[in-house]
């Protein structure tokens, strides 16, 4: 059971059960969809950007515990961050879940996201964890086509 607990940490289970910011965002000025054709998981990320700052962020969709918790924690973590900070975190999160940390992480900055470090032991779940982040990235970059994790 130990390696399972690495994957399904309490924080993840909690966010899966009661996802934060799980709603359509009224007044959003950016949005993007993420889709995992492998399993049919689907997430829409809504942003309210004021200048460079993420004033509000939310998501909706269906997915596994990892996908849902990742989206929830992402929205929770990014509120108030700038676009530049969010893009940097996108990179670092990707490194974290693929077990490929190339840069020195600011421990404080990544603390809340670190619960996903166990994902790197489960390669097929990397796409679950990064689905919402890819949608976020697309929303920030104003890409219109839904992003796919494949």
């Amino acid at each position, binding site marked *: *059971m130990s*390696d*399972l607990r690495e*994957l*399904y940490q309490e924080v993840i*289970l909690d966010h*899966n*059960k009661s996802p934060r910011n799980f709603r359509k965002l009224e007044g959003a000025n950016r949005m993007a969809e993420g889709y995992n054709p*492998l*399993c*049919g*998981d*689907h997430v829409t990320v809504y942003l309210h950007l004021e200048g460079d700052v993420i004033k509000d962020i939310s998501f909706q969709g*269906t*997915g*596994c*515990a*990892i*996908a*849902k918790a990742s989206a929830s924690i992402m929205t929770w973590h990014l509120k108030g961050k700038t676009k530049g900070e969010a893009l940097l975190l996108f990179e670092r999160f990707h490194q974290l879940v693929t077990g490929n940390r190339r840069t020195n992480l600011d421990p404080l900055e990544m603390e809340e996201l670190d619960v996903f470090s166990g994902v790197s032991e*489960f390669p097929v*779940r990397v796409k*679950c964890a990064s689905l919402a982040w890819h949608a976020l990235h697309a929303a920030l970059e104003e890409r219109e086509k839904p992003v796919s994790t494949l």
Partner: protein
Amino acid sequence: MTTATKASIPARVREREALAEVVVVSSTAPPPGLRKVPDHPFEVRKIRDDFPILQQRVHGKPLVYFDNAATTQKPQVVIDALWRYYTADNANIHRGVHLLSQRATQDYEDSRVKVQRFINAAHSHEVIFVRGATEGINLVAQSYGRKHVQADDEIILSTMEHHSNIVPWQMLCEEKGARLRIVPINDAGEILLEEYEKLLGPRTKLVSVVHVSNALGTVNPIRQIIEMAHRHNVPVLVDGAQAVPHLRVDVRDLDCDFYVFSGHKVYGPTGIGIVYGKADLLEAMPPYQGGGDMISSVTFEKTTYNTLPHKFEAGTPHIAGGIGLGVAIDYLNGVGLDRIAAHERELLAYATNALAGIPGLRIIGTAKEKAGVISFVLDDIHPHDIGQVLDNQGVAIRAGHHCAMPVMKRLGVPATARVSLALYNTEQEIDALVGGIQKVREVFQ
């Protein structure tokens, strides 16, 4: 609880009976119509000994393999056949005068005859080797379909098709300006025959339908579906990928025009599959691919195509795979197809009963006629998470849309967890699954 428990008793009684001889696999199949009925009891523990992969532990637990609809495990005799072919007989076929080539050709063509007998085709040249069921459907779509389907024509499929029996027809329709018509299903996952009847008409050029659904386990009333199509002079392709491992298939009895299946889902190697087609249809069809082996003579001005079945087998085929499939069929005949079906029926009833008793678990696909597959959802726990926790318990299942997204949409679920059975599965393994599901609920309570 009662019916399945009662049904399971004979299996347990039989298990205690004295062991008979290990299944003897003969290198030559019995003559047609004289399929030998094995006289030893069906002994699942003995069967399991034939499958070396099942002896392992995963995550410290005995492997419980319930992903048989994706691919089945291989008995030692099939593994040995591949080894023996590459060790002793490897040569190209149909052209060498040397001994190895003769041996390889002989074994490969013997396998074709084994397949012919296995599905009771009238002729061995009605059996075409391809890579798998997917390529088989593509062959019929590209050869028969492109010749016979024109603008505004219609091809009928069912809601429960695998993507491999949707996309090749979509591609054809796009090219020709033809249309797909889809037979609806009820909430149990059964084809609505009266709706199907309404779809059949002068524009219908082909019906292509799955025999056993890979996502739900529904056994379709295929004979009736064929009969109804034939009344309109419409030929029928049957996707038998999930049927052949579980049911005795007789293409002449069904009177299907095409039947496709994959070797690896019936205990044979990957990369080999079968298209059965009625000889007159195949004769009239243009080749699927061009190349060596499918020709009689070639000049730059004109090529004369080879006769059946070679016309449809361009290039060097998967010789070892074809031979391995033949050995897998020998193995199944040795165990006894009807006894395999009976064992799996008991297991399916036991599993259905056991799973239905779990609070919050809902079985998706409750057709009256089912084989080999139980799809389910559990509370609001995502099937991937179910699959992940079960894997940790040593239980391998499939989670997702099973390459059948339209039927998932129809039944209102984005994904399911799927347990699919094979001849080597046991009631103890079902019990391990049930225990694993309790663990899933503990993690996600």
